[in-house]
């Protein structure tokens, strides 16, 4: 077992974890943060995307021990109380989901991407989101939502 201390969604947690525990399993099973989902479990689909020190990472492709001393933000830490983050609001407004399973990862990647590129073109959005797969929507409304969020300053938060 290894001792880790990780700040997740603003709260610092200290835990003993097995070295082989994946970050996504730590978030879901140890902390109960089931908003972050496991999709493909092969690091392809991006459903498990969270922020590590403000940058998007696939939490199924990282060990919990690697997050020791770092700060993680999950989909559950994005809204400000009852006020949705602009990217969350844009996904709602643009109906950027059908089954919704990929949505947490999509939103976490979109917020990270918009931080790097606050005023993207449609093509840049499609390239920036290439690590996130959606099997329902055909992506059009997701791209619309990210562009709409960019217009609402979604990248500045």
């Amino acid at each position, binding site marked *: 077992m290894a001792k880790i201390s990780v700040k997740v969604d603003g709260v610092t947690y200290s835990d003993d974890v097995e070295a082989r525990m994946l970050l996504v399993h730590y978030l879901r099973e140890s902390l109960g943060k089931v908003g972050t989902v496991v999709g493909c479990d092969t690091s392809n689909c991006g459903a498990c995307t969270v922020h590590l020190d403000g940058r998007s990472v696939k939490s199924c*492709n990282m060990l919990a021990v690697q997050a020791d001393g770092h700060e993680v933000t999950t989909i559950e830490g994005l809204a400000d109380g009852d006020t949705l983050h602009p990217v969350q609001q844009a996904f709602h407004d643009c109906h950027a989901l059908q089954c919704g399973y990929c949505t947490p990862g999509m939103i976490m990647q979109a917020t990270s991407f918009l931080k790097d590129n606050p005023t993207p073109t449609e093509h840049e959005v499609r390239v920036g989101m290439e690590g996130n797969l959606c099997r329902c929507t055909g992506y059009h409304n997701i791209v619309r939502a990210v562009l709409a969020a960019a217009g609402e300053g979604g990248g500045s938060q």
Partner: protein
Amino acid sequence: MIPVSFDYLAPTTLDEALAALAEHGEDAKVLGGGQSLLPVLRMRLNAPEVVVDLGRIEELRGIREDGDTVVIGAMTTYADVLADATVTEHIALLHKAIAEVADDQIRHRGTVGGAIVHADPAGDVGPAVLALDAEMVIAGPGGRRTVGAADFFTDLFETAVGEGEVLVEIRLPKHTGWGAHYEKFVRVSHQWSIVAVAATVRAEGGTIAEAKVALANMGATPLRAKATEVALTGQPATDVAVREAAASAADGTNPPSDLNGDADYRRHLATVLTRRAVLAAAGS
């Protein structure tokens, strides 16, 4: 999918890491950014008893200039390379190749050194450092040694880095003013390349004064397209001339056959992609 249990060591200095590797020998596996190793561990294709994480070793990170060379620490992430103006100015080919690695999330974690030592023949970093005549600095129990890219990649997923050794940094000669292009052919985005071509060109007027071309996934290791490089030298940067020189791009290669394409298809692709890459690198 959950990896087999292992002991985890997170040294904070290179010396500690080397000591750990010396102690555990072949039972130990080095963890860089983990973007290739984690899937391997999860699928249980490898089950090391000890994982030595280099992620806490600050001295292995960063990009600096050393005279005519750009030096990149092995644990520098793709994202940090992409954001670095020195790389863009002096070794543009590396920037172009790394921009095509996987996706944003992977580029935030994956490291240049990790990709080079993993040595996937379809990887994007290998052909770029091979074309740029990079040198790899390897640390081991006996001190440091330097191996040129041409001798570094020895076989499928095999490099000159031996047991108990760590790739420390990559030294890339500046190619200031050289045009560069990385032409990657995939069926779907963020896939491993079926074939890819890294090309960097020093053009004088409309003439190709010097060209360096390397191929991904055309054999067990990244390969230089030497015949094409020779044929390009002194040629005008025109479609006709470059097409003719690119016709020999697959000479001496031994590409794999798989569901994405057979060897003959890859040989054809190599010539087409080389033409595109060289013309783009020459600004034509």
